[in-house]
């Protein structure tokens, strides 16, 4: 296990140490990695506001019983 940890700290699974691929659109030039990050941020935001949040039963029970502080 120690040797596996040693391998993990010494090298990455994916080597990103090569010149980036760039996406160009009109005058905008963004690296693929940055476009992925921006896309992920938008996707995560959309998911965050759309996905159901756990604990609905507990909240509905609180509403029904009119639980104040």
């Amino acid at each position, binding site marked *: 296990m120690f040797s596996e940890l040693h391998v993990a700290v010494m090298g990455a699974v994916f080597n990103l140490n090569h010149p980036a691929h760039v996406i160009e659109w009109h005058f905008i030039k963004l690296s693929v990695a940055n476009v992925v990050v921006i896309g992920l*941020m938008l996707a995560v935001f959309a998911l965050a506001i759309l996905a159901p949040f756990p604990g609905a039963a507990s909240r509905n029970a609180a509403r029904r019983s009119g639980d104040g*502080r």
Partner: protein
Amino acid sequence: MSAPPTQPPVSARPGSWTGRVREAAVGALPPEKLLPEGQPTYVASWIYVFGVASLASLAVIIGSGTILALKGPAWWHFTGVGHFFNSVHLWAVELFFFVMVVHLWGKYWMAAWRGGRARVWVTGAVTFLVAVPCALTGYVSQQNFDAQWISTQAKDAMNGTGIGAFFNLTNFGQMYSYHVLLLPVAVIALVVAHVLLVRRHGVVPPLPLEKR
């Protein structure tokens, strides 16, 4: 004979500075408000976790940064463990900005400054604006090619605005000091103020539904 007092006396209207600070603090944030066990029932969206995710990212940044600081700025270039913690620190910074901006988007679309919460917005916005130069000082403290390039390029922006006269990006000692102490202290102070203000005012209630 009565037992000696085990605590100092508490006056109803304290005259001492200590007493007045205590009363003001407890008045603004009584313990049950500072650490409540419940939240309003409208706190029912995953968007709400991005504030605490920002706090968590900051904790990981500070933790990994502390380990890097313990061993000095050159360590991570020469050992696998050092490079590991540098990587954790870098990815924690990426995560920090990621979750902080999603948190910011959520708070904007909730108009979370309502109900006397303008200072919550202001402290949060200033935190973001201070985090940007905090990251910059980190990038120029890497002591590698990236640091050489960023410092020699960004110095023109600093010099053009006059800031370069007292904030020298090519001065490693100064930049490292800003990065490891001065700017993190500023970020933490702002975050503490931000969180205490959130606890004081509570999470902003929903916008009223507009009559159609």
